[in-house]
């Protein structure tokens, strides 16, 4: 963290220029639906209010970065977006999350179908160790009880899109755990792709990886954003600047986490409206 901060202090301007190079996508220019909308989302763990009134739009086909200091509720928020939040026994929630205009928390919703449409990649690579590499990629079909003909093509296309095909094409029968950390994370991305989600949530997907693997995953994100909506939590400002069209800054001051500011990434890094955002992206705190 501290090393990163020093980098940021040294070059806030370059962050903005990185972000500016990245041609920002306009909402509504993409035939992928209306995307995902969070409306007044609050979250609690037990009686502890950890997230307050977050309203945020994720236009289809865009990449949005969620940034903010540790403990401000980024993970909590991203987990409310595919109903993984309720997985924790004490968790509670208010507000709405709409996918293509429909509330995913509406009574009578099949939560497994929601999670199929809104996939997730976790911070720590978590392939299934009892399965081979190939089985891991296709595991979603089995888990969600989907039928697909021609799974060989699907397997290849997922691995190609995750940037892993060349490295594993000759070892598809090996165990998933036999890969390096970076490869495992790309395997997990490939696994999410196999069920063809509309939205992909990534919670610090590169935080355990080396720069090389990080670069590969960023390439993958750029590629995937052609066909899906991506929301990524990251502590790495350069990464946010490199990969995202939009950025949202979260912060909590002893109370529940808030979404302080959102906007096009280049604007957040060059001309933030809020003083706290400016302090954070220039590395003055956090």
């Amino acid at each position: 963290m501290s090393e990163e901060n020093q980098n940021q202090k040294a070059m806030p301007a370059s962050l903005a220029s990185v972000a500016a190079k990245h041609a920002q996508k306009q909402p509504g220019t993409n035939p992928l639906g209306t995307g995902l909308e969070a409306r007044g989302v609050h979250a609690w763990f037990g009686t502890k209010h950890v997230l307050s009134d977050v309203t945020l739009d994720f236009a289809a086909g865009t990449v949005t970065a969620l940034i903010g200091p540790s403990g401000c509720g980024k993970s909590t928020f991203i987990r409310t977006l595919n109903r993984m939040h309720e997985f924790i026994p004490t968790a509670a929630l208010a507000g709405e999350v709409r996918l293509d205009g429909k509330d995913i928390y509406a009574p009578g919703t099949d939560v497994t179908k929601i999670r199929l449409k809104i996939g997730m990649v976790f911070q720590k690579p978590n392939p299934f160790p009892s399965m081979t590499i190939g089985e891991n990629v296709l595991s979603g079909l089995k888990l969600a009880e989907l039928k697909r003909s021609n799974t060989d093509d699907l397997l290849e296309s997922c691995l190609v899109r995750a940037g892993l095909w060349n490295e594993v094409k000759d070892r598809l029968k090996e165990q998933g755990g036999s890969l390096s950390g970076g490869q495992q994370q790309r395997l997990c991305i490939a696994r999410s792709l196999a069920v063809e989600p509309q939205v992909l949530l990534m919670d610090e997907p590169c935080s355990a990886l080396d720069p090389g693997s990080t670069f590969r995953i960023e390439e993958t994100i750029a590629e995937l954003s052609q066909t899906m909506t991506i929301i990524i939590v990251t502590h790495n400002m350069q990464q946010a600047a490199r990969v995202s069209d939009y950025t949202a800054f979260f912060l909590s001051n002893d109370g529940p986490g808030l979404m302080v500011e959102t906007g096009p990434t280049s604007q957040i890094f060059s001309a933030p409206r809020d003083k706290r955002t400016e302090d954070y992206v220039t590395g003055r705190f956090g």
Partner: protein
Amino acid sequence: MALLEDRVNSVPAPRELTTKPRRSDQIFRFVVTLGGMSSLVILGLIALFLSIKGIHILNEKGFSFITESRWEVVTDENQEVIQSTFGIGAMLVGTMLTAVIALFVGVPISILGALYLSFYASGRVKTFLVSLIDLMAAFPSLLFGFWGFFVFMDSAEYWAKLINKYLGFIPIFQVPTPIFERSPFIAGLVLAIMIIPIVTSISREIFAQTPLDRIQAAFALGATRLTMIRAVVIPYGRGGIVGGAMLGLGRAMGETVAVYTVLNVVYAVNWQMLFGAGGNIASLILLKFGEAGAYEVDALMAAGLILFLLTLVVNFAADFLVNRFGKRGR
């Protein structure tokens, strides 16, 4: 140049890596070793005792001790043994038959129960059931035996008749004469009920250790609870379940009182599980021990030795299976 070649040619031998542990660690190591070895020593002493007492019987009777199915001692008025036949064939078969029935019925129920407790039950229901199961594990087996004999027998007999009627074409479900009371089937069911608590709580502990990130990964891929359990929990817990089942099997094979109460001890090999005849080694020992003379006691010790060896073999086999197939899901 010469220098470089020298260096290349003189690859050093790997060094021996040693450490001198601190005094406190040495002492603790000794204490721990003592604890670890004690079970081995106790087991060894029991085996030694059984061998010393029983080996001469095994020598005398040879292979017929496990193939023959009679247990007769004729003594004269001075309690001297004139003639004896010792064979535990029927009891050996009965031991395995009742234990296998117990596993067949008990383990699936235990796994389902453990899955329910781990992934479906919540809050108070869970706490209550868990303590109930622990209580059940501590129940004296005599009570299971009584319950099996006085309460359970009637309905079990009814099921046995049903099975015989509809599946009677399968040899193990046939009966030579229609006697359905006190059969290995019923004894096996009572044993199944006896092993359910231990197998359930072991399986539950294993399931509880399933890594959360894998469970979450499965749910994030649109898994239902059922598919998640199949893809993540079972592969992870497989080895542990086998281990738990083996503990159950051990208990079932060694069970004395419950089997003795329920089962009709008959000295004839009986594979037909619905037919009311059988026995197991442990119940034979219980039956004969009270009035046995010194010679017959030795024979009973020999029977105990066989049971001991059988348990050992089964457990080694289970260990082998766990190591061979259980590790993949970890």
